[in-house]
């Protein structure tokens, strides 16, 4: 039920609103990417911008990701604040040099004399049978390499605040939004992501995790759509009398290890939920971050619910078999406590 002063927005609209608000006050902000103009972005997050700001500041590009991301770096170093879109994160392979070796490193290479204030926004995730080149998350891939901040909102409130913060940051920020949360009807919509969003501009601190639900028996750490799986699992566990705390990472870089460790210190148990591939990724890092700090707080071996190490299959039954979901989280709890 919508409360009187509530203004529910989808993540897509929240993102576009943050960009528009910054564009109004800062003439150096502009947007580049494929189909971000007349189409408004395949995932709706630039809708309305072309009409308001015109083709000079909202620039459809050729299918030349290396060139336009590289160009964004050059523009950022020259006083602009570009927002560039990599339509699907899966496409990072054609342009990763411009991202991880250029955008992410020029501040360091220049000893801080160059600033690289830019936002790279990109869609992640599957669940709608788009197969192995259009459904990946690769959170771990981006978070592993130094020099870029990495954020991933789970709801529209955070989406707007993170975008504003990213736009005002003098360092490059990779903004990973999950397609299943965008609130595009045609992709199905996780209703929990569409929340009240204040009209006025506000910025969230990058690098801060959030307690999405407080609890005392187990900590479930996740990000993006996984937070909603975790909340659903927590609701189910609550029916069994189990109190689960859900930590929404919000940022992968910087990673808020304090908040994670404090939660696990309280609950003694850890489940990590990640739609990215399991090995050498986010789930391992979270577990290592807790255990290298202090193993005495753990009452049981930590568990992960992550995408298995296989390409993402097309067929719905296969993809769903692989994807994290509330059932698998509840099952992880059961295995953890059965042991």
């Amino acid at each position, binding site marked *: 039920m919508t409360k009187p002063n509530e203004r529910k927005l989808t993540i897509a609209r929240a993102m576009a609103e943050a960009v528009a608000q910054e564009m109004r006050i800062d003439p150096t902000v502009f947007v580049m990417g494929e189909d971000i103009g007349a189409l408004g972005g395949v995932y709706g997050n630039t809708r309305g911008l072309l009409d308001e700001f015109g083709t000079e500041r909202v620039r459809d590009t050729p299918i030349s990701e290396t060139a336009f991301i590289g160009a964004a770096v050059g523009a950022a170093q020259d006083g602009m604040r570009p927002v560039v879109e990599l339509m699907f994160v899966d496409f990072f*392979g054609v342009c990763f040099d411009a991202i991880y070796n250029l955008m992410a490193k020029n501040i360091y290479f220049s000893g801080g004399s160059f600033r690289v204030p830019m936002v790279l926004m990109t869609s992640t995730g599957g669940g709608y049978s788009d197969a*192995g080149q*259009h459904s990946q998350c690769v959170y771990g891939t981006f978070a592993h390499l130094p020099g870029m901040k990495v954020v991933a909102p789970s709801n529209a409130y955070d989406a707007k605040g993170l975008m504003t913060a990213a736009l005002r940051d003098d360092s490059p920020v990779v903004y990973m939004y999950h397609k299943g949360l965008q609130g595009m009807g045609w992709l199905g919509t996780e209703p929990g992501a569409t929340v009240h969003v204040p009209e006025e501009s506000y910025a969230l601190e990058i690098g801060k995790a959030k307690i999405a639900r407080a609890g005392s028996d187990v900590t479930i750490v996740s990000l993006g759509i996984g937070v909603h799986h975790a909340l659903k699992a927590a609701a189910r566990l609550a029916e069994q009398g189990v109190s689960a705390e859900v930590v929404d990472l919000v940022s992968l870089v910087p990673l808020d290890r304090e908040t994670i460790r404090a939660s696990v210190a309280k609950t003694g148990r850890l489940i990590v939920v990640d739609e990215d591939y399991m090995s050498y990724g986010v789930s391992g890092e979270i577990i290592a971050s807790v255990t290298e700090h202090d193993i005495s707080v753990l009452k049981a071996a930590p568990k992960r619910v992550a995408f298995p190490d296989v390409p993402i*299959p097309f067929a719905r039954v*296969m993809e769903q078999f692989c994807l994290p979901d509330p059932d698998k989280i509840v099952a992880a709890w059961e295995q953890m406590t059965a042991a």
Partner: protein
Amino acid sequence: MSPTRDEQHWMYRMMVTSRRFEEAIAKIYFEGKTPVFNMAKGPIPGEMHLSDGQEPVAVGVCAHLEPHDVVTATHRPHHQAIAKGVDLDRMAAEIFGKATGLSGGRGGHMHIFDADVNFACSGIIAQGMGPAVGAALSRKMQGKPGVAVAFVGEGAVNQGGWHEAMNLAAVWQLPFVCVIEDNAWGISVSKRASTAVAHNHVRAAAYGIPGVRVEGNDPYAIHAAAGEAIARARAGEGPSLLEVETFRLAGHFMGDAEGYRPEGEKDALFARDPIPAMRARMLDEGSATEAELAGIEAAAAARVDAAIAFARESADPAPEDALTRVFAA
């Protein structure tokens, strides 16, 4: 050189088969997705890129190819697959995500692979260029017959990998042809807005190879130009670039409202639909009778119906099979 009578019949049959196939897919695609469109639902979930209107490119080129020749196709691969002779039953089943699909449901519509006819495709723009050049290299090194053809959209020509592969094929003088399906649009971005030259065939000059453009989405002209390029490749004379004007009669993907297209553009294209045009021309030139054409059309429709029925009736894969076939057996 005009296609022979037999070639014309084959080309027309493939074009009609392809169109019927797309129509069937388009219809089924909406099953389970109404009243509320949700891409994840229905017997065919996920993105769907149809090839309506682009059939002349596929048939004009593939008329010159044998099963042992190699084709790499795009995210919009059905017409190319059909013209290359990909097994229609197993292709339909793959698009439905069934166990009997070409890859047991692992790939779906953007990942149609058929080893029997050396066909592969990809969801990444221009990704097929390297593998096609490599297959051409393999043939040259092994002294085995066969050329390799990479189909790409005109939007793909601005991708760096396209340029690299063209240069490599030209440096090594490989039996390779790049065919650009120029439908004037890359999703919502027009060729004019994305490409610094009016026509991409001029880019052949950057590789010192022949570059030809065919206007009008005309299967006969495409057939002639492709024939020359492929013959050159077979003769060991090196790669060519062939740009073909074609029409995207569908949206970029299903669900695309195409608000970005200028008013009237689509109507004008529909008026030039290459299938009725070829039909009329064959009748006109006497290369087919009405009865022959009706027969071809009926056979094509039946073939498509059978493939769709095969796909529908096939079983889903076992969910846990998702974990298999990551590495070669």
